[in-house]
């Protein structure tokens, strides 16, 4: 009897420790200058895409040439680190990407084989984060008076929603230097921005992480999403069975199926729990794994590829790996 009590106590203690230390996957944040700022300041690259000249921001040129930008990025990073949430540094990320590219192209095995890298892997080697903090500032000048209009936008990379923001125009000044005005603007707006970011995190903990799911079909697949199957006593289209699975596996059945055709389903505003039933931190890949298992089994018996984009977006592609 005493031994039994000991076991029960020990189990409770162990369980409480596991629960106590459960931590959700931390989103990465990075500050980047907005497209608007890059274009206005001439830090752009142009590319001919199918006969159309397109303009892209050139972040590397911006951080290498613009001291004020560097100061603002550094100030925001410092203040966020002070508040317990260090950010990815844009300049370091860009440098790492370059070094990695060089290493990937040079690295070979002893047998002389290169590292395997698909075109998508190359495409994915870009500066990215789960939450992008987009920075814009403009120097206003009226006669000798100068002021700064400053804007911070926190954008969720997967849902494309603005989850936090702070903006405003500072006090006009006759003599203050631009860097000082910028520093003042960062100090003024960062805490309001953080307050909104905290609201977003609170919502995430209360209602689950908001992610996006796309279901697609390879050309060589044996069936499409409109193929009917007898599944659990019902005859339903493959897409409808997938939708039922999503409904059963979301927090409070919250999701939005914004597009459904024979070849693709787009689920948006999908709320997934932060932890699985074993208290492990959940991300979209782990979440969608059970759906893959279901589709690879009877009656579907199809290979399924999972393609992830960071913490918050996943594509499930039917028909091949």
């Amino acid at each position, binding site marked *: 009897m005493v031994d039994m009590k000991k076991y029960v106590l020990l189990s409770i203690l162990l369980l409480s420790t596991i629960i106590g230390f459960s*931590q959700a996957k931390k989103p990465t944040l990075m500050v980047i200058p907005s497209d608007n700022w890059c274009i206005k300041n001439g830090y752009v690259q142009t590319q001919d895409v199918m006969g159309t000249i397109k303009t892209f921001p050139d972040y590397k040129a911006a951080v290498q040439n613009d001291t004020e930008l560097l100061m603002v990025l550094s100030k925001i990073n410092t203040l966020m680190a002070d508040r317990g949430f260090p950010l990815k540094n844009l300049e370091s990320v860009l440098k790492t990407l370059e070094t990695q590219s060089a290493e990937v192209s040079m690295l070979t095995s002893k047998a002389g084989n290169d590292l395997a890298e698909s075109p998508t892997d190359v495409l994915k080697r870009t500066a990215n984060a789960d939450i992008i903090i987009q920075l814009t500032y403009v120097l206003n000048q009226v006669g000798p008076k100068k002021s700064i209009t400053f804007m911070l936008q926190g954008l969720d990379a997967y849902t494309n929603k603005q989850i936090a923001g702070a903006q405003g125009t500072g006090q006009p000044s006759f003599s203050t230097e631009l860097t000082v005005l910028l520093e003042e603007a960062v100090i003024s707006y960062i805490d309001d921005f953080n*307050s909104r*970011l905290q609201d977003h995190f609170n919502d995430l*903990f209360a209602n689950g992480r908001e992610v996006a799911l796309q279901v697609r079909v390879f050309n060589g697949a044996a069936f499409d999403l409109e193929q009917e199957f007898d599944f659990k006593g019902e005859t339903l289209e493959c897409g409808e069975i997938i939708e039922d699975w999503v409904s059963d596996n979301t927090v409070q059945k919250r999701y939005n199926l914004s597009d459904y055709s024979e070849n693709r389903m787009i689920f948006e505003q999908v709320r997934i729990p932060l932890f699985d039933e074993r208290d492990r931190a959940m991300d979209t890949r782990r979440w969608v794994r059970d759906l893959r298992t279901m589709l690879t089994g009877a009656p579907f018996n199809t290979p399924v590829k999972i393609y992830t984009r960071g913490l918050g977006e996943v594509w499930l592609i039917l028909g091949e790996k």
Partner: protein
Amino acid sequence: MTIFLTMPDSAYLTEFVLCSKYQNLKNMNLKNLFFVSLVFFLFSFSAEAQTKKQRAAAGYIISNYEVECMGTGMDGTQLIKVWGFGKKPDDAIYNAKKNAVHAVIFKGILGGKPGCMTRPLINKPGVEEQHREYFNSFFADGGRYLNFVSQTGDGKVDRIKVSNKDYKVGVIVAIMHSQLRAELEAAGILKELSRGF
């Protein structure tokens, strides 16, 4: 018996009408005055009751103070002008400092120059009630709130004598809102930004 019926002459009639009107007016005025006084009397009671209610609800502070932003200070500091009431100017300044910390925690600084946090540190309803004991001790006279506020400038204050017994004093103070946030996080009232990750 002969009865003489005489018509009053017009001057007499006018005087009579005027007199009666004056009398009516006088009566009316007295009545009105009585009612107006009564309303004022009752209103003063209800206003007093409201103030008492507010005081009781707030517990440690009268929340109808005025506050405006004066700009940004150093990292994690904001400068605000805040007004306080007191029987002596010094009491009013003391009260103003308390109001300044209260504003940053519960109200946000919405008016004045740019540079202050427009959102309060605590924006979830009911937190003040939930942690009443903590805030009663925090805002007690000489309480910990004083660690996060300091008077700035050359000590100049705006002083208005609002009644024989009360002063209203406006003072510019610096609020260390980052440290204040850290204190509230340590007390478990606010969540750290990275908590849970």
